[in-house]
């Protein structure tokens, strides 16, 4: 029985949507891991947040200064800022200008 174009199309879409995404995610996360390991061999710490995520963390701290976890969040924020200012290589895509504009909380 010859397969119809509809069946073949669905098969291709399914393989792409599942195996394509799974292989992309696996490759990307393993590459990121290798990069982190490589960077940690050269410097003892890594920036922990992307620019967008760090901005959001700051915004959350400013909105919730009395939250039970605010102190911990502040420590995480400051740790990331310190790392960005004291290390040469950054895991996330930080520009020099963005780093210069950061302030500890």
């Amino acid at each position, binding site marked *: 029985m010859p397969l*119809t174009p509809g069946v073949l199309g669905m098969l291709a879409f399914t393989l792409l949507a599942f195996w394509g995404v799974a292989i992309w995610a696996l490759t990307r996360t393993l590459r990121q891991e290798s990069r982190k390991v490589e960077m940690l061999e050269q410097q003892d710490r890594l920036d*922990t947040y992307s620019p967008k995520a760090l901005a959001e963390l700051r915004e959350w701290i400013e909105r919730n200064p009395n939250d*039970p976890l605010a102190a911990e969040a502040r420590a995480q924020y400051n740790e990331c800022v310190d790392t960005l200012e004291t290390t040469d290589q950054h895991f996330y895509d930080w520009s020099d200008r963005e780093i210069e504009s950061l302030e500890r909380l």
Partner: protein
Amino acid sequence: MAESEAKTAREEWGTRFGFLMAMVGAMVGAGNVWRFPYVMGDNGGGAFVLAFLVLLFLLAVPGLMAEVALGRYTNKGVIGAFRDVLGPGGMVGLGVVVLLVNIALMSYYSPLIGWTLYYAAHSLLFTFTSSGFEAEPFMEAFFANSGLMIGLHTLVMASVAGILILGIRRGVERIVVYAVPALVVSLVIMTGYGLTLDGASEGIAFTFGIDWAYLTYSSTWIEALGQALFSTGLGWGIALTVGSYLREYDDVPLGGGVFTAIGESSIGILAALAIFPVVFAVGVEPDAGAGLAFVSLVQVFPEIPLGGILAILFFVGFFIATFTSGLLITEVSVTTVAEETRFDRTQTVLGICGLIWLVGLPSAFSADFLDFADFIFGSWGLPLATLAIILVIGWVMGPERLRVLAVNKNAGIYVGKWWDPVIKYVIPIVMIFIMGYFAVDEFGTPEMIGGMLVIILFPIIGYGIMSVVDRTATETDTAEVTGGDD
């Protein structure tokens, strides 16, 4: 609650690959192999795939991100993580609910692993391709042999204990990094071979044919919902436990969420490609569950060239799929009990595996009891556990707090604000809907009564246990993260 001074620092996954394979190995189980392919073909093929994909990204991916993130954030098992969020006291009993559900789940899953072990052993002996072999009488004789069933259940639990005693890195990780790829390879070879057979295209057409009308049927969405939630193991405490062993700079959302949900579902797709071309090529009626694996497929192997080799690939792969799930389901209880008591890991493993073995005896003795337990826990027990975990994250910890503090920290992908309402509202509503749907559908049956007993008694038992256990701790400790703003 005092921790033994002899206890050493918490273990971590040795490699990123080890963590990823543990997640996928835990989630890929019998359902991916013997249920998903048939459900897909029986519910509109491509239409079902679309519904399933939407629900995976809407519910399973965000839910798994949340569960892994809570584990990584607290670096504790289920009860410890709940205590960090809720503060000591009876409410930590929600963690006990998750534990009880896991023990119950493994009690009937272990005999099922025994079935796959038995068929894997017979595939290696080329029993299925020997002359005069008949699939149905063989299966019936096997299910009627209670002694053999109990023996297999014992062997499975002893093997699980033997591996778990070695720990996370030397035990679990060492197995999953080989087992999961081996499962994929065996299914790929089976697929490649099956597609060369005459009539294989009918199997492809059954599975991937599209009937868009199915997208308008509620039954398609209910099936897709069940598959998206139960197949990914969302909210069973497995992702939380596996995530608690992540290392400092490890990502959560890309590996723990996207890869786990989509990767484990991909194995279901591969199983469909491996099974149905072969089944249709021989003209055997497609089926689901034990009927598919132990009758339909077994009838197929003698009819095709190299059928004996194909049987080995299938049943050894099937055994691997179920066994790795069993390992991680048991690890949920082992991790948290070892943390919460003075017992060391070896004592805890032996105690938990012994308890599961004992509770599992009725399921090993009778396949009917196993079906009964599976229905009760599949319909109400597991959704209850999911609800417990998601409520703790969504309504006590607060999704926004978890997202900014843990999910997006060291993340491989950025998770935006859309995630918060999914965790807080969508997943809990869906879980309540599932429990309600099954309760109405099974109203008045022994299964429904059993399910209601689980829903009522497990939280009461959990609350009672943790009220007593945490009473002294309450006087000295305070809740670490109670009172989220979002």
